[in-house]
């Protein structure tokens, strides 16, 4: 019970709050019909995940998470929603089999995962480094993950060009 008091207690509390935010946000992102609510949920959830990252010991990644996800992706989504506004008008009927199937599949999947997680005997590596510095990350990015690093730039390039071409914002097309 002592865990609920003191610094550790606060940390505990904070942890569960973060978890709550994450799951709540995720629920909000999935269940409501209003797409804007969903986006808010996504922002919440991703922020929560950033918090989780903090608990997992990486400030850097947490910040990046906020920056990239919340700052970039969610804004993009909101823009997209703005651009496709009229969809609010149609409220299609839910199809029961789809709902049942979806829920069932997700539930089964989750239970399965739960089983796997519990059943598995997670073994830590015999020797564990303690080097959490950003410098190491940077180092590795330019050495071992050099190729991936280059490729992801290509990915982003493709995404940009592709998005422009596909969405039809091309200079030539709009003119």
């Amino acid at each position, binding site marked *: 019970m002592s865990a609920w008091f003191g610094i550790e207690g606060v940390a505990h509390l904070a942890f569960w709050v973060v978890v709550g935010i994450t799951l709540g946000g995720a629920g909000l992102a999935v269940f409501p019909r209003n797409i804007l609510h969903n986006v808010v949920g996504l922002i919440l959830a991703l922020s929560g995940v950033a918090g989780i990252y903090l608990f997992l010991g990486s400030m850097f990644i947490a910040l990046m998470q906020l920056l990239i996800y919340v700052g970039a992706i969610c804004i993009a989504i909101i823009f997209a929603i703005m651009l496709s506004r009229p969809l609010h008008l149609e409220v299609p009927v839910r199809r029961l089999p789809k709902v049942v199937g979806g829920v069932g599949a997700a539930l089964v999947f989750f239970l*399965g*995962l739960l*089983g*796997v*997680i519990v*059943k*598995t*005997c*997670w*073994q830590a*590596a015999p020797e564990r480094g303690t080097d959490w510095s950003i410098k190491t990350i940077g180092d590795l990015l330019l*050495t*071992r*993950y*050099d*190729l*991936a690093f280059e*490729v*992801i730039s*290509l*990915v982003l390039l*493709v*995404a940009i*060009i*592709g998005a422009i*071409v*596909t969405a039809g914002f*091309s200079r*030539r*097309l709009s003119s």
Partner: protein
Amino acid sequence: MMKWVLFSPELYYVVMAAVFFFMSLERQAEPRKLYKWAVILSGVGVLATVLGARLQGTLFFDAYRIDLFSQVFKILIAIGTFWVMLVCSELKGVDERRHAEFYFLMTICTLAMMMLVSAVELLTIYITLELSSYSLFLLVPMRKHDGEYAETGIKYFMIGATASAMMLFGLSYLYGVTHTTYVAEVVKALPRVFNQPAAVLGLVLALAGFLFKQALFPFHIWAPDVYQGSTNQVAAYIATGSKMAAAAMVIRFIGFGNADSGYFVQLLMVLSVLSMTFGNLVAIIQKDIKRLLAYSSIAHAGYMLIGILTMTEQGYASAIYYALAYLIMNFACFMVIIKVADDGHNLQIKELAGLHKRSPLLAMTLMLGLFGLAGIPPTVGFTGKFLVFAAALKKGYLILVIIGMVNATLSLYYYLIVIKAAYLLKPVREYLPVRVDGVTRSLSIALVVLMICVGIFPDRFMQLTEAAAAALLM
């Protein structure tokens, strides 16, 4: 710096991508000019990969392995790309203003797949896979006037994204149980942890990503819609170049897995049987020829898996050979489709009526291609099947082979329907003769010769594939 020589084919494609990138910035790129460039550049690309065939070594701190296996597949991918570029002369399916981007994405995709076949580190694999997927996601909805087929892009994207998310999830578990992202080390660790459910889950989910690319049952669901809904050329590309990379990945992954555990092999058997049966059964009732080919590709993924699941060198070699065969045959069919539907519309089977009059050469190419797909000698398709089944029987999988052969017979039915249309049916309305330019003529003759010669004189190619398989296991 000598190490960069190893990377030269990929670098070449980077340069090529850059060329098209800059062309896309041009105000108005002439389609004919782009086509010429594409043909020449991709042709040289084939040359570059062929020259790099005997390279060996590793790059990027062992994250990137260059061996005969990867180089063979790079050649196959390059050839696939080159052929697709060759038939882009009448790229009516894509808006003229987007041609440059089209070629750019194509090149990038090729590049990504080339890196994919060499990548031996999970993160690199994942990212290169995503890169190739994204370029395809973007290529598919490029179709012009795509009213009916507009939904294809989003379907492909959604399914692909879901599958890749699952794969990532699986990779995370693999990482969790093996503590590494290097495939070689993962493999070393796997047997030790194979009794852990998480390892199995991770492996299956990760495999799902690759099998998704290969359109194996039950990860096939994108294939029919995408083949049908995308431009003919893109469909051809997905069916040929992209398939090669997928095959390479599956071979490499299972080859690394080399677990040879009873369960795993049984699973693969079940998947391959389901894939063959499902693909062939549904293909029977198709009307759209591309959709039909999509289902047949599902079935072929099953056949190829038979070779792979033997987990022997011979099996891998046969799978590589099969991939080669599949590339040739499938492309032959697609080439005919593209040429017959020269305005870029989707070809129905009945529209092939009277093809033997409109263009005997194309009709023959189509017939041989389809017979090849059905596994009829003396085409390369038969030899491929023969080798695959031989490898399977060497492990004693008699029932599997019988099921495979029964399926081959089943598949013959719908291939024959297409052939019947091409050779037998009287066209309901007068179709114009198909324009066959010099490139197409020489290409189809080359394909015919290849289909027969590689089928009848497989020795050379088998030596190559065996060496490649040996390199894989080294």
